[in-house]
């Protein structure tokens, strides 16, 4: 459905996307992860024909993203962080506008309009101005508008940023519904629990693709032992552990501290020392499975850290 070959984009002497190659199968929910500025949005903009690659090529739904870009527009759905709704138009008017843009008319339009209203949970609210909808509804309406013309492939660029946990789950149920009906979905996110819902994940850093696999295999491939530590002084303990013997990384996970150990014995003494500074004793380090966030941070650090200019 998507085939990117050595896709590259430079802005002046800054390489935003650097020879990125991957393929996405039909019906796949494909996740895009990476630090801010890693090139995710730039890659998506090239795949939807909004931005021409500096080098390399890509085909989406059988169309070349440069040569066939006009036709491509009708074969894809796209929703960005800034939901493309007109705030001063009503719910119904927004849907009509997209119907006009995508050439969906007549009976088919009426069918699709009802489908979008049901999907967004906005039946009965057709005359409400879009600007006055709660964020979660705006987002579902924007998604509905993006797929009004039933595109075989959907691009979602951080669609759930800032959305509460309930609305986020409701949104992913919609993505799942679309994927089950055969829509291919490429979605970028900073929420690691959402990354778990994807069939495969691509991790980008500094414009390059640094990992690509299923969430389970990415977690399994993470080879460093990780321990969870309960302490009443998590922020201070994290600080004290930075660079301490045996410690590769220490960070807060909720109130607990996750420790990536290079050398387990040395790490345990470092933890003991850090805790004793606060009059706490080491009651035990619980070995935990690597979470996707551990994997994400670990891989980015191994690649020399996040973006550099």
């Amino acid at each position, binding site marked *: 459905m998507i085939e990117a070959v050595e896709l590259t984009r430079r802005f002046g002497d800054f390489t935003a996307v650097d020879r990125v190659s991957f393929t996405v199968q039909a019906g796949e929910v494909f996740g895009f992860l990476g*630090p*801010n500025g890693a090139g995710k949005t730039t890659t998506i903009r090239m795949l939807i024909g909004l931005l021409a690659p500096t080098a390399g090529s890509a085909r989406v739904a059988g169309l070349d993203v440069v040569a066939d870009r006009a036709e491509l527009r009708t074969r894809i759905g796209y929703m960005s962080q800034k939901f493309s709704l007109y705030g001063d138009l009503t719910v119904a008017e927004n849907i009509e506008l997209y119907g006009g843009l995508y050439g969906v008319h007549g009976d088919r339009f009426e069918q699709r309009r009802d489908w979008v209203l049901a999907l967004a949970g906005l039946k009965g609210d057709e005359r409400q101005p879009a600007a006055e909808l709660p964020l979660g509804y705006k987002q579902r309406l924007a998604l509905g508008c993006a797929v009004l013309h039933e595109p075989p492939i959907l691009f979602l660029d951080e669609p759930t940023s*800032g959305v509460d946990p309930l609305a986020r789950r409701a949104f992913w149920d919609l993505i799942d519904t679309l994927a089950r009906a055969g829509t291919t979905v490429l979605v970028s996110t900073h929420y690691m629990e959402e990354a778990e819902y994807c069939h495969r994940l691509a991790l980008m850093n500094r414009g390059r693709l640094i990992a690509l696999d299923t969430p389970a295999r990415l977690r399994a491939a993470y080879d460093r032992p990780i321990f969870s530590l309960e302490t009443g002084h998590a*922020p201070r303990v994290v600080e004290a552990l930075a660079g301490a013997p045996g410690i590769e990384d220490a960070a807060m996970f*909720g109130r607990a501290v996750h420790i990536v150990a290079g050398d387990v014995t040395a790490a345990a003494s470092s933890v003991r020392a850090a805790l004793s500074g606060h009059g706490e004793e080491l009651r035990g380090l619980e070995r935990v499975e690597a979470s996707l966030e551990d994997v994400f941070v670990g891989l*980015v650090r191994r690649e020399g850290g996040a*973006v550099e200019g």
Partner: protein
Amino acid sequence: MHSGPAVEIRGLTRRFGDTLAVDALSFDVRRGELFGIVGPDGAGKTTTLRMLAGVLPPSSGDAHVEGISIASQPERVKPHIAYMAQRFGLYEDLTVRENIEFYADLYRVPKRERPNRLQRLWRFSRLEPFQHRLAGQLSGGMKQKLSLCCSLIHHPAVLLLDEPTFGVDPISRRDLWLILHEMVAEGTTVVVSTSYLDEAERCDRVALLDRGRTLALDSPTALQRSFSAPLVAIRASEPRRARDVLRAQPVVRSAVLFGESVHAVLADGADLASLTEALGAAGIDVLDAHPIRASLEDVFIDRVSRQERAA
């Protein structure tokens, strides 16, 4: 310095036309506290923060920030606070560094303190290599980080942050929270709204707002302990279908996805074996199932969905 609570909210109310966005809120934020505000969309989080920042007058009620009334003296509140709105005013035609310097001038940050503060901000934001880039040419997440740098260059008594990690990647999120903890350790009071419940777990106390009211307010530990129903995490071959099968079981009060697991809230006396049997009968492999302690996200989902059902 004022000696009472850093923020005292009494009957704070805001209407927009017929909509009651904030409905008679009353609570205190203690001095030096890291205080979280969570809640579904439209709960009134942003409206509350805007009123506390003195940029939106209340319809009725009042709040005192550092002892100053936001209803009668909003301008006098401002020197004591830094407020980061969701849409923060960056100057797109200034560079990253010029934006930070502009806010440092605006807040009259002493020149000798600037290099240290800037170093700390570069450390979390990783924006130093981009310091000469125009703000208008940054990615969305980087703009967010720059907005935070502009707010944090000033060290006020009270810091009001409206979803500071909106669109920020997991690595910078970690570093940002370390800065917030440092500022709290130095005596700053921080009030922060977030859609990440793992962030809320790090706060000293959390207010869960819904429809303009306080649904719960306590320390994360106390909120988690208050979740008394048995809770199990089930890892299964098809998580979404497993959730739907579990929802259909009479002994399951609710079931929601948490990444690759399903968290199910059970009726008292329900047993796990019957659930794994039901999943097996539906052709779903159970990889793991065990009782768990409620996370703050479990508490949030349970309280808010119960409230929605009651409404």
